[in-house]
């Protein structure tokens, strides 16, 4: 059964090739069939492989296909590695990916680039599968760059608008900074271990690099650089809000559910290296905590519904980084899974709303959609409840609670991290329900243009069910002893043990975070339904603060002054390129010598002979005299 892993990766690439090459010869229904089928089949195969794997979860499965290339001792193979961590990611990528493809069939049906869209989406799924299934870091890097490319192509999908192209370029360049750091990290690892096979590396690192040694620290910092680029964390988070320029399914698939979690995957995959660098681990936690606060507060002021979701994505990945930083590996992966469900759901539902409102993104021009689009409303509510971590009934509560508890009680946890996480939970609830109340309640200003069909509703309902129920496979110890998830993941990731083992304290903390969520919901209710004039008044009063938050803490402006301006200034100064001048000078001097020497070529044979004789004389003189 396990040899099917190769086919999971193969189908999306086949789909891409067929759609890319034969796009203009295929009918629309054919394109949909290939585009969705090439993700649907891997989803089915993943279920088969997964069920088979669950029966015997111990140990990892390696499937070798062929050698990629060989250079010295570097011989990366097209080899797939399946362990619980990879299986969870593959499941999310194929399953959520399949639902999003299904949704896209209806969402994109009137678009000119229908075939192109599905080709890129399939390429993305294929690259992401390579990323999570690769057994060596070189192959992983291929997938890593593949998803970066697809991200560029899909953000700029509506390329006729220069703004979209700009956003695509920004995403590409900013993530490229992280990629460069990661590649240097790979060089460092290879220089010291002569291999980039993940399993060999993980086995060799603890023996060779002592805990806290500078090499381990530098190695993990470089890999962390790649992770923060791809996962849109501080300081490279600026690309994600702009990435909303792409179609909604793209935002759902790439910028919420899967690609941006590649950084989380990378850190979890190389956790042995990070464990050898405690300082960097602490840095990861601090980055996560800061990012979740910055992104959360920015989300509070956004008016574009997709931007709210984009900032919430950054914030939720911040939670995952916080969990990774305190060593709560399985909690991070668990939150990734739950987040993939509800965030895909939220983006897809938001896409349906935007479509119904004639491509209007501004929430404040919507309002009252609850009655008009009941299914969208209820599924969106389910996703939002999960995002805000409504206690007990949503999956988001269980995953976020695990992170918050371990950020305090875990081995590397402390109260500051917990405080940041809890404050973030409050902010999350406020902006999430602000979105709900503004979009779906109040009075309706505009007519809805269209009714979503089944292809849009079914993925929403399925994802809503998962956003609610996925939490019950892993529950806190003090509530019910269910640890299906962490029990499964612990075959590839070490288990995090709380240092404090007081059920009473755990109850208290759960109570506090529940209160935070409910308080946040009430605040949003109070401010946007009962007293809608208050926020408007504040926006007027504190317009500077609002502007600051609206622009995501003005990081764009900071980078404009810190990086972009100096670079453009330098290039302006160096328009003539001083290095070029050196070569121009060489060319000039060659020409000068040419004009000089060409005079000796005067066509007089006797002159040449004289020259030869003089030359001989000179050489003889040198030989004799020296």
């Amino acid at each position, binding site marked *: 059964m396990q040899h099917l892993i190769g086919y999971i990766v193969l189908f999306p690439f086949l789909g891409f090739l067929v759609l890319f090459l034969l796009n203009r010869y295929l009918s629309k229904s054919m394109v949909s069939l290939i585009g969705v089928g090439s993700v649907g089949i891997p989803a089915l195969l993943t279920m088969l492989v997964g069920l088979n794997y669950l029966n015997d979860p111990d140990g990892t499965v390696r499937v070798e296909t062929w050698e990629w290339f060989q250079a010295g001792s570097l011989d990366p193979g097209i080899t797939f590695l399946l362990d619980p961590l990879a299986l969870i990611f593959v499941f999310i990528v194929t399953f959520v990916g399949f639902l999003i493809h299904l949704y896209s069939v209806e969402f994109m049906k009137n678009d000119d680039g229908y075939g192109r869209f599905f080709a890129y989406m399939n390429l993305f799924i294929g690259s992401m599968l390579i990323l999570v299934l690769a057994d060596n870091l070189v192959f992983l890097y291929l997938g890593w760059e593949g998803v970066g490319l697809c991200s560029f192509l899909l953000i700029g999908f509506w390329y006729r608008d220069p703004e979209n192209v700009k956003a695509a370029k920004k995403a590409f360049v900013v993530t490229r900074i992280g990629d460069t750091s990661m590649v240097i990290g790979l060089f460092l690892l290879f220089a010291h271990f002569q291999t980039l096979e993940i399993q060999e590396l993980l086995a060799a690192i603890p023996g060779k690099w002592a805990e806290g040694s500078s090499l381990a620290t530098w190695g993990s910092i470089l890999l962390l650089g790649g992770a923060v680029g791809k996962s849109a964390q501080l300081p490279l988070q600026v690309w994600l809000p702009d990435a909303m320029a792409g179609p909604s399914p793209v935002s759902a698939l790439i910028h919420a559910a899967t690609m941006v979690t590649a950084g989380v995957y990378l850190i979890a995959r190389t956790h042995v290296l990070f464990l050898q660098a405690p300082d960097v681990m602490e840095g990861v936690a601090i980055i996560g905590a800061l990012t979740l606060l910055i992104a959360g507060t920015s989300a509070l002021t956004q008016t574009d519904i997709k931007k709210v979701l984009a900032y919430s994505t950054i914030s939720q990945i911040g939670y995952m980084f916080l969990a990774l930083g305190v060593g709560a590996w399985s909690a991070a992966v668990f939150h990734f899974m739950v987040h993939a469900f509800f965030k895909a759901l939220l983006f897809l539902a938001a896409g349906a709303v935007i479509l119904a409102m004639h491509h209007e993104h501004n929430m404040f021009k919507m309002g009252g959609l609850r009655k008009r689009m009941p299914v969208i409303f209820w599924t969106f509510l389910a996703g939002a409840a999960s995002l805000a971590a409504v206690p007990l009934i949503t999956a988001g509560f269980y995953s976020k609670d695990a992170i918050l508890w371990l950020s305090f009680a875990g081995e590397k946890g402390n109260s500051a991290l917990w405080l940041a996480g809890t404050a973030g939970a409050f902010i999350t609830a406020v902006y999430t329900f602000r979105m709900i109340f503004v979009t779906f309640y109040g009075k309706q200003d505009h007519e809805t243009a269209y009714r979503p069909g089944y292809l849009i509703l079914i993925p929403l309902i399925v994802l809503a069910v998962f956003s609610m129920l996925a939490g019950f496979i892993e529950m806190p110890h003090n509530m019910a002893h269910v640890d299906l998830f962490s029990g499964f993941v612990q075959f590839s990731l070490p288990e995090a043990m709380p240092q404090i083992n007081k059920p009473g304290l755990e109850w208290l903390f759960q109570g506090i975070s529940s209160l935070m969520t409910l308080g946040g919901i009430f605040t949003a209710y109070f401010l946007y339904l009962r007293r809608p004039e208050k926020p408007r008044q504040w926006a007027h009063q504190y317009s500077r603060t609002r502007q600051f938050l609206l622009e995501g803490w003005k990081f764009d402006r900071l980078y404009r002054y810190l990086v972009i301006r100096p670079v453009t200034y330098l290039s302006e100064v160096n328009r003539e390129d001083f290095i070029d001048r050196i070569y121009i000078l060489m060319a000039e001097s060659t020409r000068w010598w040419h004009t000089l020497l060409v005079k000796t070529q005067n066509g007089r044979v*006797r002159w040449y*002979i004289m020259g030869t*004789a003089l030359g001989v004389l000179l050489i003889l003189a040198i030989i004799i005299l020296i």
Partner: protein
Amino acid sequence: MSLESGLILSGILFMIGLTGVMIRRNIIFMLLSVEIMLNAAGIAFIFAGSSRADPNGQIMFLFILAVAAAEVAIGLALVILIYQKFKTLDIDGISFMKG
């Protein structure tokens, strides 16, 4: 004769040949001067060979003779062609191949 006086003779012959090549403007005389230079080199070989009782000197002279014969054959053919084309044998008159 000693090797020294022989080499002096050869040197004088060579300088005469070289001067001829350099100052003569008629191609045929230039060819003649080249022949003198070749023979000067040949004499040097023979003197060197005989002073060491080594037959290789004479063998080299035979080679030089063969080269000189070939050179004269090609050189005279060129002279005929040059004369046909330019109606002159003055080497300074045909100096249009310049850079």
